[in-house]
């Protein structure tokens, strides 16, 4: 296995027509869901920090579809797309964003902290790289249990500058843990270009921890899918961790609060020309797997689901104040006896 270079990553046959249809559907769902979130944020329905994932859909959809149901995922705060790709219901995610009962975390988490244990979706984490040691621990648990499930850890390029990145990769490497590290390199950590913050390319830094490390086109869902399959096969066989750096781009600002002073509109337009959804659509049409009519039907289906999610969230009640101390040891509050 060559280490530390951009190596060929494609394995086996490309996914069949049904699976490609599924990829297209999921990427569209994420795109429309995120656009709806922006609208709901502007209308004051969603509060707090909101980091949208438009432009990066191919990463979530390609990587997460390569997983088995018993594989476990931890990810960063830009997590709606990952949750959707894992099959978490849009209704429950939107209800969480609206901070309502029926939300994935019953209104206690918010956009950056989506959890769905039933799908082995073990959370969005909002401290940059803070979840990376957790992924190491998941890999350790897989090994200790003698089972062959793996952990997928998704994070941004900004995480590479954190100490926790290095501790987590080193531990996973020395203990040969089944962890796939998946870096969504969208070019920026907030407004800082990644090449201003790192002394080396991301995949080269990872390779120095003696694991296979590849750089792929993160705006090509088929490439992401097959690269992740290859990575999973590697880690499941007991060979230790595997690192993927997926080059991608976010179309919107870092969060809804970002005035985007650090980049030009022209740059964004340049990346939009490589849009992952458009690319898959074109290639599916070329391969006779799709036509404009079924594409429009897919868009209509996705829009209906997103509207339904908003309606569900809006109709859900807010958690009662009496639930404030649910899930915590209640302490003495100061009332005299």
């Amino acid at each position, binding site marked *: 296995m060559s280490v530390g270079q951009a190596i060929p990553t494609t394995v086996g046959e490309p996914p069949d027509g049904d699976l490609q249809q599924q990829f297209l559907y999921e990427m569209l769902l994420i795109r429309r869901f995120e656009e709806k979130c922006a609208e709901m944020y502007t209308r004051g329905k969603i509060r707090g920090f909101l980091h949208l994932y438009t432009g990066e859909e191919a990463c979530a959809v390609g990587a997460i579809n390569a997983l088995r149901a018993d594989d*476990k995922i*931890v990810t960063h705060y830009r997590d709606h797309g990952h949750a959707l790709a894992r099959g978490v219901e849009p209704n429950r995610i939107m209800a969480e964003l609206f901070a309502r009962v029926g*939300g*994935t*975390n*019953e*209104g*206690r*988490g918010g956009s950056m*902290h989506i*959890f*769905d*244990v039933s799908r082995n979706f*073990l*959370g969005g*984490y909002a*401290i940059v790289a*803070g*979840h*990376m*040691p*957790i*992924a*190491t*621990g*998941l*890999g*350790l*648990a*897989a090994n*200790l*249990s003698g089972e062959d499930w793996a*952990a997928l850890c998704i994070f941004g390029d900004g995480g590479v500058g954190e*100490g*926790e990145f290095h*501790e*987590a990769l*080193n*531990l996973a490497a*020395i203990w040969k843990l089944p962890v796939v590290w998946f870096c969504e390199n969208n070019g920026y950590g907030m407004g800082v270009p990644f090449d201003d913050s790192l002394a080396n390319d991301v995949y080269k830094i990872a390779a120095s921890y003696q694991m296979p490390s590849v750089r792929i086109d993160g705006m090509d869902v088929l490439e992401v899918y097959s690269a992740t399959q290859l990575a999973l096969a590697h880690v499941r066989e007991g060979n230790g961790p595997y690192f993927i750096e997926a080059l991608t781009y976010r179309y919107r600002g870092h969060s809804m609060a970002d005035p985007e002073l650090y980049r030009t509109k022209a740059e964004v337009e340049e990346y939009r020309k490589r849009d992952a959804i458009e690319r898959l659509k074109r290639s599916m049409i070329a391969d006779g797997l799709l036509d404009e009519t079924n594409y429009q039907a897919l868009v209509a289906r996705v829009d209906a689901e997103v509207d339904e999610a908003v309606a569900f969230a809006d109709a859900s009640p807010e958690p009662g104040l009496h639930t404030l101390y*649910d*899930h*915590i*040891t209640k*302490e*003495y509050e*100061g009332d*005299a*006896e």
Partner: protein
Amino acid sequence: MREAIREAMREEMLRDQRVFLMGEDIGAYGGSYACTRGLLDEFGPERVRDTPISESGIVGAGVGAALAGFIPMVEIMTINFSLVALDQIVNNASKLHYMSGGQVNVPLVLRMASGGGSQLGATHSHSLEGMFAHFPGLTVVCPAFPGDAKGLLKRSFREPNPVVFIEHTALYGARGEVPDDPEHLVEFGQASMVRSGTDVTLVGYSGSVHQCYRAADMLSAEHGLTADVIDLRTIRPLDMSTVVSSVRRTNRAVVVEDDWKFGGFAGEIAAQIMERAFDWLDAPVARVAGKDVPMPYNRNLEYAALPSEEDVVEAVLAML
């Protein structure tokens, strides 16, 4: 004390296959305070795992393994080094159960040695029990006696969410009765009255319980006064009922801790006494605590910076 701690870990590992230990030098070296000596031979390197010096990494790995159904015990060599793992302890371990809406549990035990008094200087002499108690979602255990240490540590392994188990370095050699019963558990949030009297309530945890105890001896021998001495055992959850009912009888309280006085845990106890027993107090609650300086290396200066039984006696006499 260290044998009691070792025995608790050993029994829990025998009882439950999900329990495993990891930490710096806990295996071949036997633990920097020898608490894990012998366990590597008995359980092997998978369940007694030596780690690199990566506190954040290993605590986070403990959180991850806990999320996946294991019951890890991570030993942090000393409490001083927990400061580089605070992100994992505070942002992850303490919050995941609540923040996930109760979906996940984090049954993680973090053991660490605490306290000054060995001329190790400012970076190696912290007492940060109160800092951990500040965070909702953590249980903070501070035993003062070997028997309690065993029962509390065994109880910690049964807790579905994180426990910070803090051992005073000055107590590792302490002797005392330790029950053999493998089901001897000490419940959290239950202080113990280690001595009773009528004139004043002395409250401590971990090492400071012993200062309270010796101060009580001095008070009775030299001043004809008797004291309730309360060992909190866990500072979160905190058993204020025992403290409050004692203060309502004695009408005076002194809280003793090694940690800095300013913003320290003794202030929390004093405030709660004030909230719940104000009308019973004959004097303001006194705090005897560490002096607000980074711990000096010099022996005399260090001694002056730490609370002593003489300080406790003085505080009591001042409130009569």
